[in-house]
């Protein structure tokens, strides 16, 4: 991983979850997969995909009959790709001509702690109010929908910030750089 861009506070958001998709490019027989692999579950009445889990990296994949696969639970992009390759290998071993087409990271969730408490009610009242939703009755955190880059930040009174919806690592670094000075204004 390249060196971190500097943020005056020195705080770096850490990734918690990465969701990626890949196309195996072949039609799959889900029943066959479910019967012949140890770590999978398939209940067609509940959901029309096989849910398979591997231990390392600890990830879960949803494998559809069309050959498309969704891989979740990895902590870094490289791990997500590796896990997707492992799942594709399992499918190959089961006898399907699986390929690895169009691997794409769809969503990165990251979190960090700004180390100070934040006044959320004041935040929602200012010029940032257009982007914020703060309903203490419904959810304790403020939901900030940033337009550029387009992602969502959950900001809590404790100072914890969760960033979701990023497609690239740089996106959420930029987002955090943008939001940090604003949060510092509303320090309690």
């Amino acid at each position, binding site marked *: 991983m390249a060196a971190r861009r500097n943020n005056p506070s020195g705080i770096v958001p850490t990734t918690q979850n990465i969701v990626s998709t890949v196309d195996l490019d072949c039609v799959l027989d889900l029943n066959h997969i479910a019967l012949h692999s140890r770590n999978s579950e398939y209940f067609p009445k509940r959901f029309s995909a096989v849910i398979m889990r591997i231990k390392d990296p600890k990830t879960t994949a949803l494998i559809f009959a069309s050959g498309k696969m969704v891989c979740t639970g990895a902590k870094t992009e490289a791990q997500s790709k590796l896990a997707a390759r492992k799942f594709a290998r399992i499918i190959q071993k089961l006898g399907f001509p699986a390929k690895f087409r169009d691997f794409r990271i769809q969503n990165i969730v990251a979190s960090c702690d700004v180390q100070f*408490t934040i006044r*959320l*009610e004041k935040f*929602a*009242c200012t010029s940032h109010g*257009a982007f914020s*939703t*703060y*309903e*203490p*009755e*419904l959810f*304790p955190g403020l939901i900030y929908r940033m337009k550029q880059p387009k992602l969502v930040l959950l900001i809590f*009174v*404790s100072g914890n910030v969760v960033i979701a919806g990023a497609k690239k690592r740089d996106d959420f670094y930029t987002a955090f750089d943008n939001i940090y000075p604003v949060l510092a204004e509303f320090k*309690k």
Partner: protein
Amino acid sequence: MGDAFCSDCKRQTEVVFDHSAGDTVCSECGLVLESHSIDETSEWRTFANESGDNDPVRVGGPTNPLLADGGLSTVIAKPNGGSGEFLSSSLGRWQNRGSNPDRGLILAFKTIATMSDRLGLVATIKDRANEIYKRVEDQKSSRGRNQDALLAACLYIACRQEDKPRTVKEICSVANGATKKEIGRAKEYIVKQLGLETGQSVEMGTIHAGDFMRRFCSNLGMNNQAVKAAQEAVQKSEEFDIRRSPISIAAAVIYIITQLSEEKKPSLKDISGATGVAEGTIRNSYKDLYPHVLKIIPSWFAKEEDLKNLCSP
């Protein structure tokens, strides 16, 4: 009395105008020349000093600009008491043939009116809720939504916009069938729709515990001193770092104030019923408030020893 040409006598004859039957009759042969004449003199007498509530010039209810034609159409009402065979009869079916475009709107307005009656809200809030509902309905994307939740959310937003917020739980209690979650989702949806329609015009401040104090206190029958003390306490408590929903803080403050006063103390169950906060939550909020209780409760209301006597959580 006048002269007109009578077709039977074939000449001008004297014609009598009978006011009671409205007939113009030839006096010689008795032929009725014109019947059902319309009396165009005034229907009622108006006096300068008498106004009264019934001004005969005005008819019908106030015009409703939200409805398509201002609410000019006539509705056939169901008679009170024992209408078993009325609605199934042709009159009822005629009424409900559903050709007027406003039927959904009128039904929705009626539901909103029922809900706001149950909560005792003023007409301003009800009208605002109607307006919000109409604006959302104009964008036709709300078909699949739970109608009850949508109406309840309209009312919730109207209350917020008028600075008289009601908790979601209170709205839940009068909305039939809508859960807190559904109302919350509907509210987000409406805010988004209204934001799309007019760029970011939805102005709703965040709720504060103080907004609900008066109502909760009067539900519990606290005296004026206690109410004032509670309001001050809640203002002060906002400065401290207490991470609880404002309603829970309000409930905990009420609990503390009532424990400090000499009069009949409502139990946790009573406070829970009046505020909608669960008893466990009030206890936990009390634990969070307890360290700051000296600074929050105004000194004119309770002295330090009383505060020390407060039971420790």
